[in-house]
């Protein structure tokens, strides 16, 4: 059997910046190359479903209902993201929204209006599926009751193209935690899958101690990651921190998306968690995704017809994001 482990381009995450949000393409080279079938057949036999290439987007923290300060954009960044997604040459299969869909208010009627407005904008996206998890602004005050009324269950799982997606709720208990019931559910859910199964967890708060004094943590995050520890291919997507972040620990890579409302500063450099100032000349600065691109072992930048967007580009060499999702195995 061919050894595919040195064919790094075979399993690359071809992420493309929308300016806002993050686009992930799983296994793009597989779409172009006919030499992948052996490996995918192996995974299909091991995992029960033969994976196929697909792309998906992560959006986060629209905070519908928030109008500043500092950011007076309201829903403009969210609406711009929807336009960009609809303009992609190939429509992504899936959009994951990692929480704080709305900004909180104690007035239930006002909050319900914000949920409706969020859904109205979200439904403009011409994609296969859109999946959501709540943020503390959606569910922290009422245990998630209003969120579930509009969005359905706050934690669940589903499968897509050979990847197992797990939505976790670490906000509805008001404290940053998943809680014992959800941990028990997660254990049962994972038990259905072999250790080679590619798993993507999406949730709102980080599942590790990113900055506890800014409430950037989940108190039982270690319990969650311990349940995921036996699985070789885990990617965690989250929001909450309103900035990008990339952290690998053990078998899991944790990726945060920027927000669609305002940015927070770098926790390594700033003393206070204060939103970054709004620049009316560059209204989308610090919002949205990042460019992750790796083509045959070196970084390159793809061009998209994006205007009025300031991108903070970080070029990665040898991104192994999808290798986290679909780790090459010696055959």
């Amino acid at each position, binding site marked *: 059997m061919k050894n595919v482990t040195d064919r790094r381009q075979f399993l690359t995450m071809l992420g493309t910046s929308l300016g806002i949000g993050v686009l992930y393409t799983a296994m793009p080279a597989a779409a172009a190359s006919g030499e992948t079938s052996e490996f995918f057949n192996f995974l299909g036999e091991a995992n029960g479903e033969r994976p196929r290439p697909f792309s998906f987007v992560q959006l986060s923290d629209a905070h519908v209902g928030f109008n500043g300060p500092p950011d007076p954009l309201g829903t403009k960044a969210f609406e711009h993201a929807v336009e960009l997604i609809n303009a992609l040459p190939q429509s992504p299969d899936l959009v994951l929204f990692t929480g704080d869909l709305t900004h909180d208010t104690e007035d239930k009627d006002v909050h319900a209006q914000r949920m409706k407005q969020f859904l109205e904008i979200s439904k403009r996206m011409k994609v296969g599926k859109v999946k959501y998890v709540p943020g503390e602004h959606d569910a922290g005050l009422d245990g998630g009751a209003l969120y579930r009324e509009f969005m359905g269950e706050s934690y669940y799982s589903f499968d897509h193209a050979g990847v197992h997606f797990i939505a976790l709720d670490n906000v509805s208990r008001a404290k940053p935690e998943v809680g014992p019931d959800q941990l028990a559910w997660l254990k049962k859910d994972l038990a259905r899958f072999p250790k080679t199964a590619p798993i993507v967890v999406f949730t709102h708060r980080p599942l590790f*101690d990113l900055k*506890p004094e800014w409430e950037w943590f989940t108190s039982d995050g270690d319990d969650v990651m311990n349940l995921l520890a036996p699985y070789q291919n885990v990617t965690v997507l989250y929001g909450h921190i309103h900035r990008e972040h990339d952290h690998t620990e053990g078998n899991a890579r944790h990726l945060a998306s920027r927000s669609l409302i305002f940015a927070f500063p770098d926790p390594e450099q700033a003393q206070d968690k204060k939103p970054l100032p709004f620049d009316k000349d560059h209204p989308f600065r610090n919002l949205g995704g990042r460019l992750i691109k790796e083509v045959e072992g070196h970084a390159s930048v793809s061009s998209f017809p994006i205007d009025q967007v300031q991108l903070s580009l970080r070029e990665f060499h040898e991104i192994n994001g999808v290798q986290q999702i679909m780790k090459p195995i010696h055959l």
Partner: protein
Amino acid sequence: MKNKLKTIRPIHLATAVIALVLAVSTPRSVRADESVKTIDITAKRFEFSPNQITLKKGETVKLRLTTADVTHGLFQRAFKIDEVIEPGKTTEVTITPQTAGTFTTICDHFCGVNHGSMKMTFVVTE
């Protein structure tokens, strides 16, 4: 006058004996509690009062937590504080700081729109 003195002295003696017996037989933990410094902290949207306390490294302190409005939390990883403060209840937590420094302690029970800025400072001196 002589009779009054005769009446008082036995009572005083009995009281002194009882006090001596109690002092000897009272469990060490009760005596230790009485000497532990206690600090009252009140949570209210969106601040703690006081919003800064000064502790001494190695000195045990009891924090008595109450809320003036809704449920809040008190969280500080370094001191292993992870408490819920509910209306109508007093939550007590005892800590003995092992490290000097300045520690940000937050409300980690979502309490409303400015929850993210609700914090206080623990200053621990040598």
